[in-house]
């Protein structure tokens, strides 16, 4: 990789760290792109190439992951939605269902023994939902199963 490519990748990382850190604030793509020192359109393309999902999608994945933790802890669906920076309960719920495969209400009522058994800092990364599983190992497994 050229020094320039490495530098750009580091800028993208800083934008991703911003998403992970400030997910509860009203972030939008122009704010994220500014952190990466890129134009919004260029930033979105480069971010997706590096991390496998668009910046906005990455933000929503982070929010849903944090909402999952709150729901597991017994927080109400409305409070979990507001806590993570989503302002519309309807779009939060449909995004949640799309990513998790279950409605927030149903997810909240499930048992979460395996997650409770992990240290919370491990659970934080292990329970992060994966939208388009990009692992080559996973692809090989799915390929073999098909």
């Amino acid at each position, binding site marked *: 990789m050229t020094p320039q490519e*490495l530098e750009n*990748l580091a800028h993208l*990382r*800083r934008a991703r*760290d911003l998403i992970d850190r400030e997910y509860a604030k009203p972030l939008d793509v122009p704010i994220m792109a500014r952190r990466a020192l890129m134009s919004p359109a260029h930033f979105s393309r480069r971010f997706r190439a*590096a991390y496998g999902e668009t910046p906005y999608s990455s933000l929503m994945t982070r929010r849903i992951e944090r909402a999952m933790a709150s729901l597991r802890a017994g927080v109400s669906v409305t409070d979990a939605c507001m806590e993570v920076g989503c302002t519309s309960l309807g779009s939060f719920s449909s995004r949640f269902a799309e990513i998790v495969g279950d409605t927030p209400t149903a997810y909240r009522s499930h048992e979460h023994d395996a997650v409770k058994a992990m240290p*919370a800092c491990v659970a934080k990364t292990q329970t992060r939902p994966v939208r388009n599983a990009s692992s080559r190992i996973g692809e090989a497994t799915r390929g073999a199963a098909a």
Partner: protein
Amino acid sequence: MTIALQYCHITVNDVDESIAFYGDALGLQVRNDVASDGFRWVTLGSDAQPGLEIVLSVPHAGRSQADGDALQELLTKGVLPMTVFRSDDVDATFETVRASGAEVLQEPIDQSWGPRDCAFRDPSGNTVRIAQAPAA
């Protein structure tokens, strides 16, 4: 028979800027500096934990160009596994490391699962978390 952890390898893009981070900012001491084939392996340790050292090396050291490139990309993207240190005064350590200009990931907070901790990126993109050591 006893078993103990001796070396923990951390891949970095630039050994010297990483010595500034792990040594000058974080407070570890350089124990060893070995060069081979144009690459360097530098170890740092702490008197608080004699016998345990971190080993700094660059992605392409001892690897093919393709493997080195792949590792360097993951490193710079910030997705390699993190390292966790502990300090007897996490707030003071945080201020020292922040003053060095390191990228802050998280200010010191009391985590819901117990410890008080903070987190930084090292100059290459590794996550370095620092936890408060339990009172003796």
